[in-house]
């Protein structure tokens, strides 16, 4: 692609709307009792309903309605009270009924927004962007078509057919590629917090399509949009949008028009390509699904669901700063995963050294999780162990560096171990009590009157010799910080 100068690019504005499909982690499918499970042998979770056999009717799984409402509430949406489904008609071998059951006219959630923090590269500076939602609706997934290389056949796996999905559709509010990535991170965090989707883009349980257009800055009319598919990570969504922005500007600068089309993102080249299909404009002939009775969401349903909602990251970031006096940075890091935030609060119920808890979590605990590839759901220490470790270090009974290395290592995955007893057993505890240390130090100093006099005359480097003697003479570990402090005090008095 020819390059376009920054000066020209800067005359254009990027306009992006995102459609996110999230597979809901319900036990069963949206309209059938089949297991909703990833990774089973092909075509095993397929009842007659999933197979679309004649005479079968869909039955709505109420758990998925609840999940969609949770997402709507988390995104400040209006929840539709009277809901119907619609049929979206098209033929494809992995679509057993010849239509997809979805919500066209009455999405379960309407409007709403999410505030996202976007930043350029690794910059500490960020800007907050409000991205409005158009809707969130419920629908079923299709099956999977597998086209083996060099084969003249296609394999169909219908396990995925009927998997419950929500589709979260934004308004075209995104103006920077980074905002798209930040939005996806927020959506993923929320679905994980709500426990309604694992948010795994690589495995396809969360998928994103982007509608991208450009226009001259100052124009109010939207440009012709292009739909981009096949981006299986947040990073790739951002890359695809970055590429597409430049491509579209270039097309317009060359005097040509943007074609309405679907393009695929190629991860290796970082480019988008027009899909090679001769698909005419599809007329999906949406019409109200007559096989499903309308479902009504009552006030009672809403208050019950609201009551069952966990605190969400944006609330927790606020709370961690207010209640635990953490810096914003710590609050954001600790609320990234719900399990971490919950764990933090549990530890803080046992110790008042909140910032120390945060340091432990962001330091040794996070390193451990990263190194072992574990998640915050698999914490290496019990809540009690961490609280005790924090208390011990804060009292000076052992140093943070010793505690975070040796004590931590000794406690990892030993839920029965008690922090203080373990530290004692490993001889990690140190004496830091002034009343105990002071007479002992005086005693040592008294043994070296010449050196003490030399020190007082200015040979300050003798402090190291005194420290060595103190440490050597003690039968227990001594807090070196405290000992140094007291030594100076004794020598200089």
């Amino acid at each position: 692609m020819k390059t376009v100068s920054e000066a020209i690019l800067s005359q254009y504005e990027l306009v992006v709307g995102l459609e996110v499909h999230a597979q809901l982690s319900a036990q069963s499918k949206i309209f059938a009792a089949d297991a909703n499970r990833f990774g089973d042998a092909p075509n095993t979770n397929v009842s007659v309903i999933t197979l679309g056999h004649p005479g079968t009717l869909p039955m709505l799984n109420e758990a998925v309605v609840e999940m969609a409402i949770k997402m709507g509430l988390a995104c400040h949406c209006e929840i539709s009270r009277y809901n119907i489904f619609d049929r979206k008609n098209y033929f494809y071998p992995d679509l057993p009924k010849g239509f997809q059951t979805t919500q066209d006219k009455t999405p379960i959630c309407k409007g709403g927004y999410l505030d996202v923090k976007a930043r350029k590269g690794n910059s500490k500076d960020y800007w907050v962007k409000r991205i409005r939602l158009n809707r969130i609706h419920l629908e079923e997934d299709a099956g999977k078509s597998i086209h083996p290389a060099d084969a003249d056949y296609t394999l169909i796996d219908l396990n995925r057919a009927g998997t419950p999905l929500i589709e979260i559709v934004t308004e075209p509010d995104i103006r920077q590629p980074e905002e798209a990535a930040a939005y996806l991170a927020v959506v993923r965090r929320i679905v994980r917090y709500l426990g309604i989707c694992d948010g795994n883009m690589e495995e396809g349980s969360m998928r994103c399509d982007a509608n991208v257009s450009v226009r001259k800055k100052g124009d109010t009319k939207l440009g012709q949009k292009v739909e981009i598919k096949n981006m299986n990570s947040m990073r790739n969504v951002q890359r695809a949008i970055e590429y597409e922005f430049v491509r579209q500007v270039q097309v317009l600068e060359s005097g040509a028009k943007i074609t309405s089309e679907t393009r695929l993102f190629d991860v290796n080249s970082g480019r988008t390509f027009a899909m090679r299909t001769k698909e005419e404009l599809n007329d999906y002939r949406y019409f109200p699904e007559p096989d499903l009775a309308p479902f009504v969401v009552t006030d009672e349903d809403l208050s019950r669901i609201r009551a069952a909602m966990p605190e969400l990251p944006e609330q927790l970031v606020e709370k961690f700063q207010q209640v635990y006096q953490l810096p914003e940075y710590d609050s954001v890091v600790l609320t990234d995963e719900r399990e971490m935030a919950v764990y933090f609060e549990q530890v803080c119920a046992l110790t008042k050294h909140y910032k120390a808890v945060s340091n432990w979590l962001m330091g040794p605990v996070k390193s451990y999780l990263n190194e072992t590839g574990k998640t915050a759901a698999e914490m290496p220490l019990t809540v009690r162990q961490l609280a005790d470790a924090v208390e011990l270090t804060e009292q000076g009974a052992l140093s943070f560096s010793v505690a975070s290395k040796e004590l931590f290592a000794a406690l990892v995955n030993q839920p029965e171990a008690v922090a203080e007893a373990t530290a004692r057993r490993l001889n990690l505890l140190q004496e830091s009590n002034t009343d105990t240390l002071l007479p002992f130090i005086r005693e040592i100093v008294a043994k070296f009157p010449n050196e003490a006099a030399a020190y007082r005359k200015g040979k300050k480097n003798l402090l190291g010799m005194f420290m060595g003697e103190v440490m050597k003479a003690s039968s227990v570990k001594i807090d070196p910080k405290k000992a140094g402090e007291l030594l100076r005090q004794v020598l200089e008095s």
Partner: protein
Amino acid sequence: MYRSFADIRTALSHGSITVASLVQQYLGVVAQRNGELNAFLETYNEEALQQAYQIDQKIAAGRAGRLAGMVIGLKDVICYQNHRLQAASRILNGFHSQFSATVVERLLAEDAIILGRQNCDEFAMGSSSENSAFGAVRNAADINRVPGGSSGGSAVAVQAHMCTASLGTDTGGSVRQPASFCGLVGVKPTYGRLSRHGLLAYASSFDCIGTLTHTVEDAALLLEVMAGADNFDSTASTQPVTPYSKQVQEQPKCGKVAYIRETIESEGVSSEVKEHILQAVEILQSEGFTVEAVDFPLLEYILPTYYILTTAEASTNLARYDGVRYGYRSPRATDLESLYKLTRSEAFGKEVQRRILLGTFVLSASYYDAYFTKAQRVRRLIMDKTKAILADYDFILSPTSPTTAFRVGELSDNPLQMYLADIFSVQANVAGIPAISIPCGNDTEGMSIGLQIMGNFFEEAKMLAFARFLMEKCAN
């Protein structure tokens, strides 16, 4: 031959027959007459006899169900586990259902016997049972006449005493119109009264399973057994089911009955049909009922509304028959598109193709509002106007069909004329109310005339009692 289930029960209790001998008797008639009538597509001889022996033992042991001795045929659109199901269409060649319809389960639980599956118009689309991949069904009263449709095979099987009762389906009159042509009682219950789980869909918001019997009492008993909520159909009603089989015997109150003026005064209604309906009106008046003519200015819009909405639903309900997973697949297909096109062109009959195309057209973006949206609104109007009449009157009377059974082939090339055969019956489906067709005499050529009674939503009990009463009076 036993006309009613009550007769069968009497004979069973006298020991003059067994269920096994009854099944054999029915199978004998099938063997004798099915060749010319073409009512049954297949019968489950061995299986039915086995069931019969078991039920005889249950009777002897005093633990038989309420339908012990009821031998039933199923229209070929109702699922029966591990039995073929093909909607009288080539597209479902070789297909076996993996489950039974809820209504079938409930019949079997009361010891009914399923004798076989019955011929019909392909996908229940038709009014003469001539649109079948297995050839036309013939009227047992005159084999040169049609039995009506689409549940023609189900009607003829009962008419010719091949079984005690049949389950048909009624989307626009497909139970009542053949009942009328074959001199039977045909009931279409309120939409949602019977579960549709296991009913191969034609037009989901219209489809109802219905019964074909000789007597109203048998229909009442079958409905009572089959009706009620179902975990497999969210559109099945949770309204409580009342003991129809007792209530059918009640003396109806001398209430108010309406008949829609146009249904009797229209030129399209044959004079003999008209005469018989008016005789029934006189009988009712002499019995103390108030019978009044009412106007229904929307009558001319009912059929167009019905055909727009049912074809729209059918076009997507039938999308699953694509040759990919089951049924017929064109051997000439070379790629995906030709697989779809050839399979569906080769295996769907003309009438089915016509309706799929019509339905696809009315749902297409450019015509959606002009046809589908408008038809939905008109449906609402028809529903409201019908309700308004039923707020003032207990029942609405009309002929079931404007004529008696026509000749085989007479209307085959004229679909619009054929559609008119359902002009009076579709109103109940458009509105969702229950309706019944009862015989009220024969024309001079010996063909039966049907009288239709429409009742209010979920007032099956009241409608059945009234129908039983009127049928008795008409017979005298």
